[in-house]
């Protein structure tokens, strides 16, 4: 069992509240996943720049690493430090160089990259994880979160969701895939790389591969119905998009609320019960094997 939540704002007016709303949703889902938690938030982006999310033992280690990274790319890099995580802003052209430098270091790990996406995950109770990273004060247009009750791999930070395998792309998953080893081998032949043995990372990698090959998020998810086997409810974020897919027998629970202001996803209605205007929202269960996708222009 795991809990997943997602929130996609259709209007800018609630953007300052995004983190607070997502934080409440995540805390309620502690009952479904007390082992670890994670979330991705799509906030501000700057033209021509990329945000790299990295993790390390503590802030001092991260500050030292960011300074050194700045020397490597030849400019001071603005960064936000939150507990064991740092989000570094750098010119898009320097992304590959910076990622190689990060990969060469033993004291920090690459977590995700995007024009707008920031991604945090840690072991521990979801509420505590949200507090550590100050989710309640984060702003943005959409975000997704996950509370994990581990079944397929160990309780580690690297095994926590969301998984990000492409720029601004991330995915959370409730369920378990049965053919992930085979799919991983196919994707590795296509040049995709994986950080863990986790089944969910394969689903994320599959979508990133399809998008790389020219598919839209909706098309990639539709094709995953034929290629991924197992139980899943996926919630996926991209730079401007948000999507939901359940397996053909809808093994895992899902409920959604839509208003003029937002689309919200929860594993259970309890996770949506505190959202503003939810009593008047259109409440529905996503149908099995049906892709639901929203895009903000």
């Amino acid at each position: 069992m795991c809990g997943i939540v997602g929130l996609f704002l259709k209007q800018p007016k609630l953007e300052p509240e995004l983190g607070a709303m997502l934080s409440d949703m995540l805390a309620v889902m502690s009952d479904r996943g007390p082992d670890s938690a994670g979330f991705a938030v799509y906030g501000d982006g700057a033209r021509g720049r990329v945000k790299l999310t990295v993790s390390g033992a503590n802030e001092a280690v991260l500050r030292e690493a960011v300074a050194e990274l700045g020397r490597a790319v030849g400019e001071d890099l603005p960064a936000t430090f939150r507990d064991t995580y740092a989000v570094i802003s750098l010119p898009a052209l320097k992304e590959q160089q910076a990622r190689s430098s990060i990969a060469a270091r033993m004291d920090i790990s690459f977590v995700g990259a995007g024009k707008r996406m920031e991604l945090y995950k840690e072991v521990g109770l979801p509420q505590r994880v949200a507090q550590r990273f100050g989710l309640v004060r984060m702003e943005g247009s959409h975000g997704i979160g996950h509370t994990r009750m581990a079944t397929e791999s160990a309780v580690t930070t690297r095994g926590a969701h969301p998984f990000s395998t492409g720029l601004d792309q991330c995915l959370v998953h409730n369920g378990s895939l049965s053919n992930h080893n085979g799919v991983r081998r196919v994707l590795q032949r296509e040049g995709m790389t994986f950080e863990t043995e986790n089944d969910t990372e394969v689903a994320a990698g599959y979508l990133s591969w399809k998008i790389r090959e020219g598919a839209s998020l909706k098309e990639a998810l539709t094709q995953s119905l034929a290629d991924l086997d197992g139980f899943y409810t996926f919630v996926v974020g991209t730079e401007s998009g948000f999507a939901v897919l359940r397996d053909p027998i809808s093994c895992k629970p899902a409920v959604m609320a839509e208003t003029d202001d937002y689309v919200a996803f929860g594993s259970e209605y309890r996770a949506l019960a505190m959202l503003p205007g939810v009593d008047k929202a259109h409440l529905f269960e996503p149908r099995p094997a049906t892709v639901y996708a929203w895009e903000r222009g």
Partner: protein
Amino acid sequence: MSNVDLGKAPLRELNAMLHALAPATNETHWIVTNPGGKHAIACGVDAPVTIDIEGHVGYYCGGMNKRATILVSGNAGVGVAENMMSGEVRVRGDASQAAGATGCGGLLVIDGNASARCGISMKGIDIVVKGSIGPMSAFMAQAGNLVVLGDAGEALGDSIYEARLFVRGNVASLGADCIEKEMSAEDKSILRSVLKRADLADSVSPNDFTMFGSARRLYHFHIDNVDAY
């Protein structure tokens, strides 16, 4: 009349009070506010009382119900009225998966739609869904009646034993060993009585339904299959 605000009172307190009701209790009308999608609200009640729940409920609301009438003004989560023995559960909104699962008796009425596996393994319960039902409904159904005013999803009645499935709209597909059946006078009278209990006798005609049931090829021994044993 007893009022319980689940925004303030713990759910266990409410359920403990309901479980403590004597058979001849005078506290026959309960109002529950702010259910907030909580799980197992009014589960295991065994008293002839009416419980009005104002809002959306989570999983297993009214599970194992005996004799009580439970009214949900909003939507219900997974397994509403699961394993009901008698009494009534009525949901004004939609119901999630496995509504009325394994129910042995009583009446479950859903005004909206029910999603996947409605009436799975039903064992004597009567279920009326005014909207449509999702895929794999009445899977391994054993007894009782499932009445659907709208449509039914894929694999209706897969591996069904002896329940009656009445559908007024379209059926996406039938599951293994589930077939359309001729409605006898007795079947029609049973349907009429279920519709009456759901207060639909005047607005819905039994003649508009198609009945489905078991072809009985799956659960009877057949000599052609002897090699499989």
